[in-house]
Each structure stands twice: as C-alpha cells, then as structure tokens.
C-alpha cells in the first residue's frame, strides 16, 4: 500500500532557501521499495574483459546522431574519434579500444523495441594502443572552448538521459546559484555510482572542481542517499582533502529522490514549474559519474569510452564492472553468471529500466545496470480492475492523479490527458508499485505519450499537405486564367490580322494574289501542326492503357500532352 512521504512540506515553494544547507525539504509521495543494493554494493569495480566484437552506436547522446568519420577496414586506436558531433546538441563517439573497423551498419540497440541504429563494429586487436592523450589546460581556455572540448570528448550525462554536458553547462553558464551533484542513486539494485564514489572520490571531487570553476555557483551540493555510508564518508574525506567548500548532503532514502525535480526539491525546497528547466531557477544538476568522466577527459585526455555497469538480479556473482562502451550485454552479463531460470534482461533499474529483447545489443553510455530477470525476483502481476483507492495519487512524487491518467489513457481519449498533465509524469513507477490492483500504470502512460507524439506529428504533416494542396489548386486556377487571357489576346490579334488581310485583298485583288498565297502557305503548315498535336492529345487521353505496349510511343505522345494545351488550344 501507499507509503506516506516523510512529513509535510516545510517551506512554501518558490521561497529562497538559506544560504547554508541547514535543513532538507521533502516532496509529496515516494515509496520505499526493497533496495536490493546489498548484493552488489561491496563488490569492487573490476575491469570487464574485451569482447570479440565491439558494436558502438553513433547515436549515444540526446540530440543529433554523430556522423561516422571512419571507413570500413580502417585501423583505429583506443580513444580515436569514430563519430563526429553533427550539431550543437550532439556529442562525439570514440573507439573503446584499438582494432579494425569491420562494418558501419545498423545494429540492434539496447532499446525495448530491439530496433537497429547505425553503429561502428570494431574488432579489437587486444593491444589497447591509446591515441596521444594530452591534458587540457582548461584553466587557460574560455568556457566556450572548454565546452567544445567536452563535446569532442563525448561527455554526456551518465545518469541515464545522456544529454550532452556542454549544452547543460552553457545553459547554466550565467546565474547558477546551486550546482548539484547527483549521487543519490535511488533506484533499487543499482550500485555503480555508489562504488565509484567509494573508490574514486578524489577524481570525482576534482571533476566537480572543474564544473564549479566553470559555473561559479554560490553553493555546490553533493547529494547522497543515507543508505550509502561508505560513499558519504569517502566523498566527505575527498572534499576535505581538496579543501573545497563543497557540501556533502545526506538525503533521506526514499524513491525517487534521485530524480532531478525531486532532488532539487529536497535540497533547495524549490519546485521546478512545468515546462521549465532547473536553469530557469538558477540550479544545475550533474551526475557524479559525469563529473568523474569530465575529470578523466580534461585532466587525462581520455574521451568517454567506458563506464561502470552493475550486474545484478538473478545472478550467482553480482558485481560492478568497468566496461568498454560497445560490449554486448549478453556477454557482459555472463560475467556475473546468471542462473538458469533467468528469463530476460532489464537495462537500468527495476522501476524505470526497460526490458531488452536483444542480447547482442551493446552497452552504451546510458547503461548503468543490467538486471537478470527471473519469475521469482519479479513475479508476474496480473492486472485487475481499478478499485479507486487513490493509493497511486498519494504515492505520486509529481503530485499528479495517476488514476485519472489511467482512465483516459485506457479509453484512448488522449486529448483529455493534457488536462491532467500527463507530460509532467516522470514515469518513476511509484503509482504502479503501490497499486493493489497491479495495474501497469506507467505502461499506459508511456503508450499514451507515444500516441500523443505521433498524433501531433501527423497533424503537422496533414496541415502541410493541406497547405500544399490548396496552393496547388490556387496555382492551377491562376495558370488557367492567365492562359485564357493570353488566348483571348492572340485570337483578337489574329482576327484583326485576318480582317486587315481581307481588306487588302479586296482592295487590290489581282496584284496581291502572291502575297495572299504566301500568307496561306505560312498559315497552313502551322495549322496542320496544331491539328496533329490535337490528335496526339486525343489519342493520349483515349488510350492510356495502349501506351504501355510500345515503350517509344508514350514519350512523344505525353510530350504532346504536356506541352499540348498551349499549342492545341488555338486549333480547337
């Protein structure tokens, strides 16, 4: 059943919080699911072995797909750029190891659809030869130049949305009051950020230092859920050692505090209005793993080619593996020895993750966790009718009414869903978790969101088609009118000419005979030509089927038809 959120609201939203973080705030709803973190929390990060083939998708960031800059057969070095950012909202993609490019083709993606997207397939040579790695003297560069560097290094948000970090940084460049580092990791099972903070706190804090130098915020808050005491200790020690004024904020363990809006709410007491971004409120948020990769990029010259992935669920040896981007998920999960009754793989956490139908799909920058699914771990929950208990509304951290959204989604009355703010749903799954009738609410919402998106696009296309159709009709009418006018003029001119000629002929009948003859000879071939064209047009209209029999005929006839009206009309 619904678990009420801790306490009420302590501060009306929108009010300025205190400069120092003396208290935390809470959000409505949320749940306390079984954390399942103990399985993999104590397993140190290990290096995953290289697979036989790396499949590196070129679409690894929000925004535009990277443009391939290598060819099949090319030798590439570890960290060499294979896909160039194609737009401002786009990030480069790099080879995760040295080897040879086998193919550049659509390959299955780690996506619930299993659809393919353009990828570079690399056969590792096992030598792991790096490109020339040079630290970037970012202190001497302008912020714009640093952003370009980050884009070149392929740095994207590693919390799951893979939004290019340079875009977020540029948007936050002026007027950032609070820089928040998200180490909450609130979803069950996932421990990759926890381990990263425990083992590499120093480098994370150095990365945060770069972010703080760029944005010059008033406060830097590192948010960690209280169920990660080792990570909290490690980060506090690292902050102290670096002698920076960052604060490690220990936040209550309640799902989904790690979600952007909820985290900002907990730390600052401020609520991000619908259709606004945190930057509008002077807040910017990065994942701690992103800070780590920014440090590796700028200080070591290493592009983003690996990430820590938690392997857990129905496996014999759960753990955290530092994995090369492009490793097939099936091969990676085999390292954790999945048990025999495993019936699927989930990428991400159990609440917001997606089932993967394709085991060959690769690990991408967004993959933080693979969960082996089993009927025992995730028992089937047959859907029952809604009993209107309202548990979902009490659990919703976005303060929506999931039961209303469910009714209208199910009834396919999508236009009503805007009234209930479907677009504000973050698909966290709290409503479905507490639902006593086991209704897969989030699935309904995802379905409705997709339908609404498709309909909006169709409407736009229909509008475009209507405009083009109407313009075509307008153009045809105009051409017709112009032609009629031209013909009327020509006819009038000819009539005048004929009348003149006749007059002349009548006046000087015997003398002007040759002249009259020349006019007739001049006119008659023209008229004969017109008659022939008219006949061709008639044929073309009458026998469209017969044209197919002789391939040479249509060209002439249709030509006659195309250029027909101008020539043919005077004859008719």
């Amino acid at each position, binding site marked *: 059943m619904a678990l009420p959120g801790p306490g009420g609201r302590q501060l009306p939203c929108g009010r300025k919080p205190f400069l120092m973080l003396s208290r935390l705030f809470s959000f409505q709803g949320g749940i306390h699911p079984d954390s399942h973190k103990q399985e993999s929390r104590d397993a140190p990060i290990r290096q995953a072995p290289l697979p036989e083939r790396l499949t590196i998708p070129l*679409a690894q960031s929000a925004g535009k797909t990277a443009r391939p800059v290598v060819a099949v057969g090319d030798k590439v070095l570890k960290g060499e750029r294979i896909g160039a950012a194609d737009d401002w909202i786009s990030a480069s993609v790099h080879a995760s190891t040295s080897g040879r490019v086998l193919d550049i083709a659509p390959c299955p*993606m780690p*996506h*619930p*659809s299993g*659809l393919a*997207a353009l990828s570079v397939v690399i056969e590792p040579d096992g030598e792991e030869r790096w490109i020339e790695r040079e630290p970037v003297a970012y202190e001497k560069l302008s912020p714009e130049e640093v952003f370009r560097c980050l884009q070149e290094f392929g740095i994207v948000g590693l919390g799951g949305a893979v939004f290019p970090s340079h875009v977020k940084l540029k948007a936050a460049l002026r007027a950032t009051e609070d820089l928040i580092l998200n180490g909450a990791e609130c979803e069950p099972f996932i421990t990759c950020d926890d381990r990263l903070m425990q083992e590499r706190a120093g480098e994370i804090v150095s990365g945060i230092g770069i972010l703080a130098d760029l944005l010059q915020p008033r406060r830097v808050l590192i948010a960690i859920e209280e169920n990660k005491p080792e990570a909290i200790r490690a980060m506090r020690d690292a902050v102290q050692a670096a002698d920076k004024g960052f604060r490690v904020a220990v936040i209550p363990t309640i799902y989904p505090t790690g979600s952007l809006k909820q985290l900002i709410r907990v730390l600052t007491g401020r609520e991000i209005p619908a259709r606004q971004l945190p930057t509008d409120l002077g807040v910017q948020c990065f994942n701690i793993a992103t800070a780590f990769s920014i440090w590796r990029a700028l200080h070591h010259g290493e592009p983003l080619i690996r990430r820590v992935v938690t392997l857990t669920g129905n496996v014999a040896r759960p753990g955290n593996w530092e994995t090369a981007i492009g490793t097939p998920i099936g091969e990676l999960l085999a390292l954790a020895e999945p048990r025999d009754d495993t019936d699927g793989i989930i990428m991400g956490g159990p609440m917001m993750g997606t089932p993967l139908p394709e085991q060959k799909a690769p690990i991408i920058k967004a993959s933080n966790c693979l969960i082996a699914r089993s009927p025992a771990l995730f028992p089937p929950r*047959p*859907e029952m009718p*809604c009993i209107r208990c309202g548990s979902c509304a009490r659990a919703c951290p976005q303060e929506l009414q999931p039961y209303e959204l*469910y*009714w209208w989604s*199910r*009834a*396919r*009355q999508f236009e009503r869903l805007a009234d209930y703010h479907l677009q504000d749903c973050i698909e966290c799954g709290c409503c479905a978790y507490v639902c006593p009738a086991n209704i*897969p609410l989030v*699935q*309904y919402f*995802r*379905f409705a*969101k*997709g*339908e609404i*998106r*498709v309909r909006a*696009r*169709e409407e736009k*296309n*229909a*509008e*475009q*088609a*209507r405009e*083009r*159709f*109407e*313009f*075509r009709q307008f153009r045809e009418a105009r051409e017709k009118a112009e032609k009629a006018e031209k013909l009327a003029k020509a006819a009038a001119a000819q009539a005048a000419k004929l009348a003149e000629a006749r007059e002349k002929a009548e006046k000087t009948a015997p003398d002007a005979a040759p002249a009259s003859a020349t006019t007739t000879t001049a006119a008659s071939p023209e008229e004969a030509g017109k008659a022939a064209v008219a006949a061709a047009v008639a044929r073309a209209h009458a026998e*469209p089927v017969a*044209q*197919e029999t002789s*391939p040479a005929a*249509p*060209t002439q006839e*249709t*030509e006659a038809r*195309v*250029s027909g009206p101008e020539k043919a009309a005077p004859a008719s």
Partner: protein
Amino acid sequence: MTGFLAAILVMSVGALLLGAALGYAAIRFKVEGDPLSEQINAFLPQTQCGQCGYPGCKPYAEAIARGEAAINLCPPGGDDGVRKIADFLGREFVPIQGGGEGGGPKPKVVALIREDRCIGCTLCIQACPVDAIVGAARQMHTVMTSLCTGCELCVKPCPVDCIDLNSVPETLTDWKWPCPVLADGNCPAGGNPF
C-alpha cells in the same frame, strides 16, 4: 387602456430595433466561407487521395457539411478519424468502409519512383495533389518522401508502371510503446474504462 397600448408600442419598437440590429449584424459580420466544412476538414488526414469519391479532403468535408456524404468514407483517417467527426457532429460512430484490415487506418505508405525505369513523362507530377514529385520532361522524376502523403494517385497514370508504394519502416525516433496487454491477450480497445 393606454397602458395596454403603451406596452404593445414599447414591445413593437423594441422588436423593430432588435430586428434591425440583427439584420445589420448579419450583413456586417457575415462569415465568409463555410465554418462547418472548415472544421470537418481539420479532422481529415489531408492525404488528398480521393478514396472517398471526392476530389480531395476539402470537397469531402464540404459534402459532409451539406449532409450529402457519410462520415466513414476516409480510409487513411481510419476509425479514429471517423470517431472525431462523429463526436464533432454529434452523430453515431460508424466503422470505416474499406481501408486496412480490421477497420484500422491503412498502414502509411510512401511512393518511390524506380528511377532506372522512369521515362520522364511528367504524368505523375501532374497527378500529385501535394506537389511532392519533382522532375521535368524527359528528366528523371523523384518523390520527396517527407511530403508524400501516400495517396496512390501517381501510381495509375504512370505509363511504365515504375512507381512503388513502400511502407515506412519503423525507426528508433518514431517507435512508440505499445498498449499494455490485458489478461485476455487483447489491448483495451478504448471507450468507457469503467
């Protein structure tokens, strides 16, 4: 007696004034065109395919507005389209005539010219209602895929039969989550969920 006459007089003068005002307003604020057909036209998919028997979406909308045409003649719009028009006009929903299997909307198709066979006759260009085909006489023609509505009107005029209608393959950007499946193996069909 005078009170009675005064009442009649006041009412008549009032009626005359209001009538004059209404009459003036009817001329002064006359609505150009047919707003009903415009609104119906907005529900139609604008493929301009003529499958309804009218030469385009607008003529069909006008025919519906005049009450001459049934509301279920548009296969590209599908049952959803019929439902929208039925809701708007306050009429009963009628399943679509023709169209794809199960009354659903036809799957979206896009015309493609096999360019090695195209003889450059321009007949398809003239047939396209949305000017989505480019080319010139004796030059190869090509379809601008993003503008093609899949109306099929270009297929028949082609003398060498070189236009194919291809279904649009699903990509990651237009993929959408399917409807949740109920215990009986079907998706909720819509309508009243209670």
